[in-house]
Every structure is written in structure tokens, then in C-alpha cells.
């Protein structure tokens, strides 16, 4: 844990350095596309009223000055499969974004979508020696959380304190200076496969970039798509991506659960390709242009030219009806939503005060999806678009850029994590000098 603590602290320092330079890159490496945004931070407190984008609760202190997107290569199921291919794709997109921004990007914040994430709720408790909660006590209680065995090769991606309790007063956001005898905390820890992070890190290093932060894609999508009330009262964000579907549950502005369903839009395309015996690219086109969930009588008569270049006239001049496409897509989408339902049930989503469900990601653009989702997931379903941020081009504001926008918000205002607090002194075994200093400060 200490090793990870140091790594994450180093990343936080990197992020601070990048903010000081004023330029930071956002790299959303997905299974179907890679997006890169270049953010420019121009000092805090300056708000611009540009084309209808207000100050947005202080989230507009940055501006997007470069944006590029490209087709992902060498990715499968949210993880890197072929390193060299992914590296090329990253180079393409970073070079394009840099060219548009006209500045060099040195620090990037990336997100990891796959890597078999698993959520843990940890609890810790300490007795307060001074009868009052100090900053040091907060760090101690976070360190006192008893971590279960995460398994071999697992890395902690997020460790966010969700709730603090002093004596019997629970639900505190900030326990500092509260009087009491006992401090307890709940922490949400998200672990992912260490190798997936290592691969991503290697890929980014190979592009001469430095990682200034890493976040889970489901978390980023939730931050971008859920409005403030939804985050406060409890909501789930379903990020329907290409390689998989991310699920994250928010309450009291904290993520309390995140998971990943390994069925995504690519599987739907694959089904169409197999079912209609068309090339993958054609199937993708059919899905995006003519896809749907609810078939009507009119769709039977809506014939689509499949086309093709096999050279076989019979094969190339085929046409399928739209209801054929819908008939293939619908069971797969149902399956995805059923899986999501299971994850939500496992997380105890039913017991949340508000059960808002927000669909985002590229898959949420399938017409009629919200109707199907209402039937499977619950009554309160909406299709969400990411928050508007300053300077982002209009074609980059559709739901498939939710995690990129979320990462931009994460870069500007990261939530407190375990490693943002000073580790208690007894954990520093080797640093006797600092311990001596602390002893002096506490006793004199």
C-alpha cells in the first residue's frame, strides 16, 4: 500500500506542476475511439461567459484549446491488447491535438475502462486522543481502514473517503474540528488489474508523456453526465461503450460503487455482421445509421442496401429490412442491460433514496434505448450528455465523450483521495528525520 501511496502522491505532484505550467492533456483511451483534449488553465477565479456557457460552479477555469479523436487500435474490452498499435493511435491523437492547440503537451491524465474493476467498501475507526478531530486524525483513520486481500496483482485506482462519523453522528463530509471520542470512516476502494495499469503507463511513457493522474472511466463518465442533484441524491451512470459497459453509482457526491460489464457495442456489431453475413465495417454502419430497439411495422418495409465488394453480384446487391437489424440488436442490448441490472442489484442500488439512472456513452444513442432501459432497470431513466465545458467543439459534446469530459473535470477538481492526506508518522519507518521534525512541532 505504501508503494502505491507514493506513486499516487507523485502523480498528484505532477498534476500540480502541470497546472502551474497551465497545460494538461486528457487522454481517453477507449475500445472504439481514442480522444485527446488539451486543457489550458489560466489562473483560478477567471470566469468567461462564452457562447452560453456560464461559470458552472467554478468548473470553467479551464478551456479546451485542442481536441482530437481517432479510431482506437490494438484495444479489446477496455484493455490494451497490442501495445505498439495502441501507442501509434495515442501518437496520432496527441499529435493532432497538439497541432490544433499549438502547444506541447507533457502531462496527461488518462482513464482506464477495463481491467476488471472491483469495488470495496472499507471501514476504519480510531479513538481521538485530543477529544477533537485534527487533520492528522483524518489521515490516521484512513490509514486504519482494514484492507481485505485484494488479490494478486491488483492495484488501487481510487480510494475515496465517502463518509465520516464522529461518535454517533454519521454522514459528515468534513469531520475536522468536530468534538468527540471516536472517529470512524467509510472508504470506497476501487481496485483494478495492475497489469492493465502497467500496460497503459508503458504506452503513455513510450509517447514521451508523463501521467499526471489516472481515473476509472466509469467514474469519469459519472462525473460528467450526472448533474449535481443526481450525484447528491443517488444515481447510477451506465456508460455504454464499445468494448464494455461501465456502471458507477454516486451518492452524496461520492462514487460508492463501480463495475464493468464486458459486453459492449462491438459485440452488437459482431452480431449484425454474423447474422446478416456482412463485413464488420458494413455492420457498424448499419448499426449506427439504421440501428434501433423497437421495431414497428414500417421498419419491415424499410429496406437497406447492404452493398459489398466481394465481386459476387448476388451477395453485393442484397438488401435487408431495418427490422432485421433491430431484431439482431435488441436481444444483445437486453443482455447488456440485464447484466447491468445484476450489478446494480449486487450493489444494493434499490436501497438508495433516489434511483435515477443515466445512460451515456456512444451506445446510449441507439434510438429507443431509454424505453427498453425503463423496462429493465427502473422507471427513472434518462439519456445523459456530458457537462458542457468551455471551448469544446460541438461535435465532441455527444455522449460518447462523457469520460473525456469527466476526466477534464477530474483534472480541474479531483476529489479527495486517501493519498491527499499526509500519511501518519508511524507509517514512515525510514524517515526518522521527518519524525523528529514532527515531534518537535507537536511538542514545542
Amino acid at each position, binding site marked *: 500500500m505504501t508503494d502505491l501511496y507514493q506513486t499516487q502522491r507523485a502523480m498528484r505532484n505532477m498534476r500540480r506542476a502541470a497546472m502551474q505550467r497551465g497545460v494538461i492533456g486528457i487522454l481517453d483511451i477507449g475500445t472504439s475511439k481514442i480522444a485527446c483534449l488539451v486543457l489550458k488553465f489560466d489562473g483560478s477565479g477567471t470566469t468567461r461567459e462564452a457562447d452560453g456557457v456560464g461559470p458552472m460552479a467554478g468548473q470553467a477555469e479551464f478551456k479546451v484549446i485542442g481536441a482530437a479523436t481517432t479510431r482506437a487500435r490494438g484495444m479489446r474490452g477496455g484493455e490494451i491488447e497490442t501495445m505498439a498499435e495502441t501507442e501509434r493511435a495515442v*501518437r496520432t491523437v496527441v*499529435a493532432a491535438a497538439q497541432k490544433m492547440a499549438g502547444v506541447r503537451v507533457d502531462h496527461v491524465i488518462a482513464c482506464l475502462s477495463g481491467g476488471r474493476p472491483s469495488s470495496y467498501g472499507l471501514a476504519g475507526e480510531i479513538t481521538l486522543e485530543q477529544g477533537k478531530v485534527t487533520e492528522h486524525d483524518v489521515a490516521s483513520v484512513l490509514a486504519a481502514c482494514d484492507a481485505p486481500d485484494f488479490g494478486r496483482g491488483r492495484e488501487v485506482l481510487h480510494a475515496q473517503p465517502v463518509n465520516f462519523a464522529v461518535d454517533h453522528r454519521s454522514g459528515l463530509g468534513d469531520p475536522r474540528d468536530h468534538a468527540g471520542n471516536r472517529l470512524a470512516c467509510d472508504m470506497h476502494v476501487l481496485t483494478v488489474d495492475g497489469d492493465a495499469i502497467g500496460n497503459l503507463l508503458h504506452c503513455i511513457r513510450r509517447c*514521451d508523456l508523463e501521467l499526471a493522474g489516472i481515473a476509472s472511466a466509469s467514474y469519469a463518465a459519472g462525473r460528467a453526465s450526472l448533474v449535481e442533484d443526481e450525484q447528491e441524491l443517488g444515481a447510477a451512470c451506465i456508460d455504454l461503450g464499445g468494448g464494455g459497459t461501465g456502471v458507477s453509482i454516486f451518492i452524496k457526491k461520492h462514487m460508492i460503487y463501480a463495475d464493468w460489464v464486458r459486453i459492449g457495442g462491438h459485440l452488437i456489431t459482431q452480431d449484425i455482421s454474423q447474422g446478416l453475413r456482412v463485413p464488420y465495417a458494413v455492420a457498424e454502419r448499419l448499426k449506427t445509421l439504421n440501428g434501433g430497439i423497437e421495431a414497428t411495422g414500417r421498419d419491415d418495409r424499410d429496406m437497406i442496401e447492404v452493398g459489398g465488394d466481394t465481386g459476387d453480384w448476388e451477395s453485393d446487391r442484397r438488401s435487408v429490412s431495418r427490422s432485421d437489424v433491430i431484431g439482431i440488436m435488441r436481444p444483445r442490448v437486453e443482455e447488456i442491460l440485464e447484466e447491468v441490472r445484476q450489478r446494480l442489484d449486487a450493489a444494493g442500488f434499490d436501497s438508495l433514496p433516489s434511483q435515477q439512472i443515466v445512460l451515456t456513452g456512444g451506445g446510449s444513442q441507439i434510438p429507443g434505448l431509454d424505453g427498453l432501459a425503463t423496462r429493465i432497470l427502473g422507471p427513472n431513466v434518462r439519456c445523459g450528455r456530458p457537462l458542457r465545458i468551455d471551448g469544446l467543439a460541438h461535435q465532441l459534446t455527444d455522449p460518447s465523450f462523457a469520460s473525456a469530459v469527466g476526466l477534464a473535470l477530474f483534472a480541474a477538481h479531483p476529489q479527495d483521495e486517501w493519498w491527499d492526506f499526509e500519511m501518519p508518522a508511524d507509517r514512515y519507518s525510514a524517515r526518522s528525520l521527518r519524525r523528529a521534525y514532527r515531534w518537535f512541532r507537536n511538542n514545542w
Partner: protein
Amino acid sequence: MASLSDQHGAPKPKRDPAPSRLQYRLERMWLRPLYRRFLRIGLPAFLLAMTVGIWLSDEDRRAMLSEGIDGLVDKVQSREEFQVRMMTIEGASPAVDKALRAMLPVDLPASSFDIDLTALRLQVLALDAVETIELRIKPGGILSAVVTERQPALLWRHARGIDMLDKTGHRVAGVTSREMRPDLPIISGDGADQVTAEALALIDAAGPILPRLRGLQRQGERRWDVVLDHGQRILLPETGAIVAMERAIKLQKEQDVLGRDISVIDLRDAERPIIRMGIDARNTIRGARGLPLLGLDGQVLPDQDKTGG
């Protein structure tokens, strides 16, 4: 099937849109402001300076270059359009005209670039007789000079001869004798040229005694004496000379002072005008009083009445 696929040929490999590692690194380097500035400004400037420096380091090339530039300048300057063929002078007397033509530094026809009009103008203004001059080159290759000459108003006799002065006191020309310009009044004395305006005013004020006026004499660089014929003088004060002059004229009108045997009217003290009488008048008075007479030098003569009869 083989023939079918042959018909289409091998699928053309798509160009990889990803930049190569080297290209990517170069692009990123290019985005560094320092490199960018160096490559865009520093390097070209250095190369340019070095090339020019190496080229110019050879003596022959330098000479060739300067020759070439000189030749080019010469060629442009000696074009037909810039030639000045003649000089017209307006408002100048023959002597000034001659001097002006002599002052022109080049022989006409010459290029207008060789004639420095400002220097020429300053040189011409150094001539005493010229008050202002307007020099310009008119289209058609004509150097036009419009000269305003100084008008002599006074003659000034001083230790080195006689000069003509204009009304501001500037020298116009020298004259050999008074008779050359009998129409001009004459003044004399050191510093008389500094106060020509007062002298002219005094001469204007002379009025009825003008026919008898021979000239004005500056005394001690501070006041004027009016010299009349028959050796008579009017001594004027330092200040209020004109008023004193008018007073003298009034005296002349009322009492015909100057018609009598009076050698000097001293008006220096306005309270107390003094008159110095001539020898004859004094002898008449002395004779009436029975005093010995005075000689022409003012000395008492030996008693002629007793010796001579």
C-alpha cells in the same frame, strides 16, 4: 476464385495515419518555444550573416561590390531626367549675378544630385548684398534662384573706409568715396552701424535743417552728434534723441539759432540747453565790454587796438 481475386489485384495497403516515432518527437520538439524561435529566427539570421561575412571577407569582392553600387548610383543620377542645364537668376544686380554663377560648385549641365541646394543657399547668404534667396530646381532642368538684394540706406564712414548699410545696419557693399552715393546720408563713428534705425529716424526728423545736415556722428558708442555745415553741431542726449532733435528744430524755427554765429548747441541735458558761441560773436561782445579780443584758436590776442592804433 483465384482469378476473381486476381482481377481485383492485391488490396492496397492503407497508409498508416500515425506519425512515426521520429516524426512525433520532432513535432513535439518543434512545439517548444525555444527551439521554435531558434530555428525560425536565430538560424536563418546566423546563416545569412555567415554567408554575407564569408563573401565579403575577400578584398576583390568588396571592391567589386562598392564599384557596382557606385556605378549603379552614378547611372541613375546621370539620367536625362535629373540633368540641370541652365540657371536663371531673378532680382539680382549684375555683380551679384556674376558672384552667384561663380559660386555654383559644378559646371552646367550637371546632375541635380551633385548640387546641394542647402549648402549653396547658405553660401550665397554669406554674401553681404543678398538678403534672401530662394533656390529650386524646376522641371526641365532649370536651377532657379530668386534673389532679394539688400537696399542701401546709409553710408557709414569708419576707420577702414566707407560702407553702404541697409536699414538694419547690415553691410551691403563698400564705396570708395562719398561722392559715389551723394543721395545717401552719412553716419560715422564706432558702433554707428548698431543703431542705424535711430540714425534714420533722426534724419527723418531733421526736416527743415536737412539741407544743412552733413551727417551724424556717433560719440563714444552711446549718443549722436548732428553735424551741420559751417562747423555747427547739435549734441543729442543718449536717450530721447529724437525729442531733443525736434526741440532743436523748434529753436531754429523760433529764434533762427543756427543762422547766428553759434558753433554748438548742447542738448544733452534737457533741463539746461547750452549754446557755445562762435569766435566773432564773442569778440563782438568782448569788444563792447572793452576786453581783449580772442584769436581763432580761442587765445586772448595781444591788444591790437593799443599797438596798432
